[in-house]
């Protein structure tokens, strides 16, 4: 998910909280590269903002209980990722807003607080992601190439384990990254959907770790290792075609904390064994 937002502030002018909604939006936009949606122009002509609202998580900032921005989001059937109500936040932090429309010391203090809260959440998200994505992959992968007619099948020569279900695992310490092989993506052709495994779920070796789907078929990802899912490649939710581009690199599926790799290893294949299986399957696969 992108770390910048599409921000929809109410931009009220008849109440101070509305003016504050605009100031909060501006500051977040300055610091995150977010894009601000003008509520009035969006109502008058929505072409300009439909793309922004669809591509970025939506942050709705309302000044008061009338919730003009929230209502506009509902009217446009937008999915709200986060929302702020300035009047409610001022009560929560016990910061009294003045009667003048000019932003004073209290208003700017509340503005700083709310902006920092949003930015802090993002930082925590980033930190969490860093903890989750801990399998350090090799900078360059050396591939064996096997060609059948016009189709080229790649297979990493070192460091990868495979199962006969055409899925791979790359293990570092007690963690593994998993994915599918070139044989799977070539067989499926254009992959259109990715159903990830649930983060935190425990998967047995040869259990299902999500699925991928093309116009031809649905492929259940058979997990080569047992463990607890710690991360998924959420870019595949938007770009499942990354699996077609390279299923060993940007098309990886998930990461797991291993629970019994020593036992799992006994049922896994290394390059020399799996390449024979893959070649046989390719030769038998009448594409």
């Amino acid at each position, binding site marked *: 998910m992108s770390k910048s937002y599409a921000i929809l*502030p*109410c*931009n*009220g*002018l*008849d*109440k101070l909280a*509305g*003016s504050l909604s*605009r*100031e909060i*939006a*501006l*500051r977040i936009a*300055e610091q995150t590269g977010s894009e*601000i*949606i*003008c*509520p*009035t*122009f969006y*109502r*008058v*002509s929505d072409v300009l903002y439909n793309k922004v609202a669809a591509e970025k998580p939506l942050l709705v900032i309302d000044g008061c209980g*009338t*919730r*003009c*921005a929230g*209502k*506009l989001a509902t*009217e446009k059937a937008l999915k709200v990722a986060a929302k702020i109500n300035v009047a409610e936040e001022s009560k929560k932090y016990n910061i009294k807003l003045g009667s*003048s*429309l*000019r*932003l004073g010391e209290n208003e700017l203090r509340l503005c700083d607080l709310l902006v920092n809260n949003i930015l802090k959440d993002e930082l925590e998200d980033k930190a969490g992601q860093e903890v989750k994505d801990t399998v350090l992959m090799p900078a360059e992968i050396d591939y064996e190439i096997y060609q059948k007619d016009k189709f080229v099948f790649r297979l990493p020569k070192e460091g990868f384990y495979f199962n006969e279900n055409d899925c791979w695992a790359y293990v570092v310490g007690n963690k593994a990254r998993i994915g599918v092989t070139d044989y799977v993506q070539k067989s499926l052709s254009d992959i259109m959907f990715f159903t990830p495994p649930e983060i935190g779920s425990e998967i047995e070796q040869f259990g299902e770790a999500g699925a991928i789907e093309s116009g031809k078929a649905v492929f259940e990802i058979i997990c080569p290792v047992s463990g607890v899912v710690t991360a998924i490649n959420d870019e595949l939710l938007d770009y499942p075609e990354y699996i077609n581009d390279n299923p060993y690199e940007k098309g990886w599926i998930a990461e797991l904390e291993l629970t019994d790799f020593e036992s799992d290893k006994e049922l896994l294949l290394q390059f020399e064994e799996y390449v024979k299986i893959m070649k046989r399957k390719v030769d038998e696969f009448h594409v």
Partner: protein
Amino acid sequence: MGSVKIGVVSCSGEDCLGGTISRLATRKMMEQIRPDDAVTLCLPLFIAGGEEERGFAAAHPTITVDGCGKWCAKRATERLSGKVSDVVQVADLIGTETAEGPILSTRNITPEHLEMVDKVAEEIRLKFDRIAESYKGKALPIKGF
């Protein structure tokens, strides 16, 4: 001034500097220049509010203040509330190129920006007083708001 409350409706001003100037000039009218005679309504409230809010332009002779050539304030007011009595176009006063520059946080307002605000506020005042003069001794179109 007389008893007629005149509406000043600014664009939401989220796309360009002209919008920021429009909002600040409208606020100056409300708070300093004609605090007892000017009323405003934020544009999104035309959309989210009820009949009372949508009757704003019918209840008050209204001037819209637009920051750029998109005319959001005029278009939204006339579409959702009623015909406006006059318009102020910020781009005509500070130049189109300047008006279409990047939006501005209140932290970054310079004396030059404040001069622009004064210029626009003065234009609003001129139109405001002209309307007020024409309503002298007349009843409000609709009583109260």
